[in-house]
């Protein structure tokens, strides 16, 4: 490394300071407050109070049940679907893969609201339809979304795509020769699958199971919408309820700690599971895997895939469109009953719509820009080992993965409602939250992109006298353009749908779209919710499409 003075040192110092502001301070305050008693002394009393209180222990157990079930269901659905898409000659495989990824654009809380419209026990459209078809009496319900099972189902709908992507990508990469060898040695198709494909895919599936577990563990929106009407709490909704009046930040902080610890442990387990995957790729070049012929099963396979896709995609969007143009969400809209009442109300009367749209757009753009830049800088420093201590930066950039959104929200609230940085009430605190939450995924995307750029190119630039930043701007950045654009899009989309940290950190002036939808949900204004949700998804889709035109690869990642 050169000894010439350039801007890299101050930049590095700034990055480190920023990461400290974003991560160390909130988590530090969280731990301090959780250990502080009413008298200001150090105490474990908050933890004792929590773990002896059934209103906290019950949600903890419920949450674990949900996370385990979601994890199992996601694997059971995603593994066969991933296999069908990646390894068989199922028709429309590419379209189905795209649609599964597209279902990730739906914010989970919007999905939960849509499923209320579909499967509320009495007014749900599916239940009404079933009554019409089967003559089931009015008091009975085919589906009850306000139940533990209903909640598990809805969370699974919006979690299995993460597992699907992992599995499908892993199966894409899996060498076909091993399977060929197996069949040459006389194994039948299904035997090969059992003896070769499944064992090779197992570590990925395990990692997927952990991703799903983490998602379910840390989700706030869906439980807030479905569990509370059913009369139970999960850990995240309980933490949030501790923030309602009278706020008990010390208990909220203490309640966040188990979530934090559990997440850290699971991430360690995930790293181990993914680490073991190495044995599958033995080196050398393999041919593309040969698709398995499904024969007469092709039809049923594609039907199964479409049936699965109906759950997160077709049915919920049908319900949202229906209630956007209907006076009462429980009625199917017809030519006589179609109304623009909700659209007019949302855009002409509801005075929060425009400020919320503006805040959301501003924050998403700023978070995406800042987050992508920050991730780029850190990825560069780590990939090129540009300074001593680069590992610390890499660690800090990954650390937020271990901080659930609601916990980060609590931590930021505790850290920035007091001097020296009283950021609460400004958009800055939300910006910090969003950038922090999305940094790990952004950093991972750009980190892997950096591995594709040869250091020689940069070194040539340095030898010709350019400073490190100049080299980065003139040589590295153009080469990474598409990865940076993909990362930017990823953060933009993720910011728009973020609820769990925003719901703790917003004030009336810094309300974002997700919080506005949540507010409307609490007063049951489903028509306006449908209009806003569709608007939100439309914006997201337009941004992704625009980014695609910039020749970026659209990426969705499990994070």
């Amino acid at each position: 490394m050169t000894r010439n003075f350039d801007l890299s040192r101050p930049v590095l110092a700034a990055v480190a300071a920023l990461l400290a502001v974003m991560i160390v301070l909130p988590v530090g305050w969280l731990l301090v407050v959780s250990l502080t008693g009413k008298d200001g002394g150090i105490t474990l009393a908050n933890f004792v109070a929590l773990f002896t209180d059934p209103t906290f222990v019950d949600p903890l157990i419920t949450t674990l049940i949900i996370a385990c079930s979601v994890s199992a269901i996601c694997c059971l659905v995603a593994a066969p679907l991933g296999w069908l898409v990646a390894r068989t000659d199922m028709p429309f495989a590419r379209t189905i893969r795209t649609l599964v990824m597209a279902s990730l654009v739906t914010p989970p809380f919007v999905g939960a609201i849509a499923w209320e419209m579909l499967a509320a026990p009495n007014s749900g459209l599916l239940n009404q339809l079933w009554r019409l078809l089967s003559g089931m009496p009015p008091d009975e319900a085919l589906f009850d979304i306000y139940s533990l099972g209903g909640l598990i189902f809805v969370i699974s709908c919006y979690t299995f795509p993460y597992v699907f992507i992992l599995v499908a990508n892993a199966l894409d990469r899996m060498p076909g020769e091993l399977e060929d060898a197996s069949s040459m040695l006389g194994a039948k198709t299904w035997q090969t699958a059992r003896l070769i494909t499944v064992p090779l895919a197992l570590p990925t599936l395990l990692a997927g199971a952990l991703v799903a577990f983490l998602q379910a563990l840390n989700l706030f929106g869906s439980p807030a919408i479905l569990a509370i009407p059913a009369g139970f709490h999960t850990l995240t909704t309980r933490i949030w309820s501790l923030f309602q009046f009278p706020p008990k930040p010390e208990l909220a902080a203490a309640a966040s700690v188990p979530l934090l610890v559990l997440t850290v442990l699971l991430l360690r387990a995930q790293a181990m599971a993914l680490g073991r995957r190495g044995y599958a790729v033995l080196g050398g070049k393999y041919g593309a895997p040969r698709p398995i012929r499904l024969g007469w099963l092709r039809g049923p396979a594609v039907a199964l895939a479409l049936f699965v896709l109906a759950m997160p995609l077709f049915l919920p969007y049908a319900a949202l469109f229906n209630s956007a143009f209907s006076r009462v969400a429980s009625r199917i809209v017809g030519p006589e009953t179609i109304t623009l009442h909700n659209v007019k109300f949302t855009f002409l009367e509801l005075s929060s719509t425009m400020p919320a749209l503006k805040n959301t757009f501003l924050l998403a753009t700023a978070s995406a820009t800042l987050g992508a830049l920050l991730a780029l800088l850190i990825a560069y420093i780590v990939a090129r080992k540009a300074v001593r201590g680069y590992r610390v930066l890499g660690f800090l950039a990954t650390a937020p993965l271990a901080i659930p959104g609601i916990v980060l929200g609590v931590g930021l609230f505790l850290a920035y409602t007091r001097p020296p940085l009283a950021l609460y009430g400004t958009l800055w605190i939300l910006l910090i939250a969003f950038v922090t939450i999305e940094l790990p995924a952004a950093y991972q995307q750009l980190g892997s992109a950096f591995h594709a750029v040869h250091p020689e190119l940069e070194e040539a630039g340095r030898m010709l006298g350019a400073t490190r930043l100049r080299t980065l701007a003139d040589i590295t950045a153009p080469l990474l353009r598409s990865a940076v654009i993909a990362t930017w899009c990823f953060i933009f989309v993720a910011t728009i749908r973020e609820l769990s940290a925003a719901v703790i950190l917003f004030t009336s002036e810094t309300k974002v779209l997700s919080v506005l939808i949540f507010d409307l949900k609490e007063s049951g204004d489903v028509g306006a919710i449908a209009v806003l949700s569709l608007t939100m998804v439309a914006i997201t889709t337009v941004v992704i499409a625009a980014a695609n035109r910039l020749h970026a690869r659209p990426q969705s990642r499990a994070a």
Partner: protein
Amino acid sequence: MRRRQFVAAAAASTVLAPLGARVLSAAPPPQAITPALIEAAKKEGKVTYYTAMDLSVAEPMAKAFEAKYPGIKVAVERTGAERLFNRIGQEVGSNIRRVDVANSSDAAHFIVWKRQGWLEPFLTPDMAENLAADQRDPDGAFVNQRTHLSAIAYNTRMVKPEDVPKGFVDLLDPKYSGKLVKGHPGYSGTIMTATQQLAKALGWEYFEKLSKQKVLQVQSATEPPKRIEAGERAIAVDGSDYLFWMAKERGAPIEVVHAVEGTPQVSNPMAVFKASPNPNAARLLVGWIMSPEGQEFIVNVSGQYPANRLVKAKAGRPALASIKTLPEDPLEVEKTADEIKTRYQRYFKV
């Protein structure tokens, strides 16, 4: 009728004195809505109105004000009264100056805000003259904007005439299990107020038994009307009565029940905040809402009971005096709000 109607506010203000809240000995001299005030308000150009009123009333009301005073935008910040109290507490506590006018369905909050010195006393000559003494704080720190009830109601397509409940105790009958929806006192001021009144009248055992009826637990008192209209549940245990009526008048199959035990009554005070960033627009808005024109607007749109004596209640709705109501007691709500939330959560689990 007036006497009985607003016992609450009067009770609150008489008991306020011993709490040491009375810094001023009397209401401030009334301030007229002068052209200068209107001009200053237009210069501010906006006003932020925190309210617990349903958006279907609050937003049109805001638009009517904007039409009357062009150039002043009203930002309506609507959520449940208990959430509003939390938000305002956090914002004012963090020196975030945002709220101009607050209006909520939990009268207890105004006792707290007044004690903390957060409210700016304000009365127009019209308010001083046409609000009965029990419709305003003696020091003019807040006034009652309107009154509504938290009523039982049902979907006529889902409840047979012989199964219509007569009151709250009827709802404990096993035949109503799984058919009820109700709001939450940790969110809604209407429900908080009603819970205090019902717990006093029927005892907490009532809620313990009610919690075994597989109740669909929603948050806002504005949601049970929407849920029974959608047919999600047959009967609303509670909810803002004006929304039941509005739905009924729109043709929804909804009937209101005034319980034999008495129906909880909820006043909706309103006040200007001392730290208001738009103090002139704030006064203009309060003056207009309380004027016969503003009151008439609320009555026409929603049929809630007006506070200004120049305005008549909506035709076709039962007169307030004809309904057996439960006594409202904001001071008691203020003292026991925490306990109410804790007990409620113990029974209903959320």
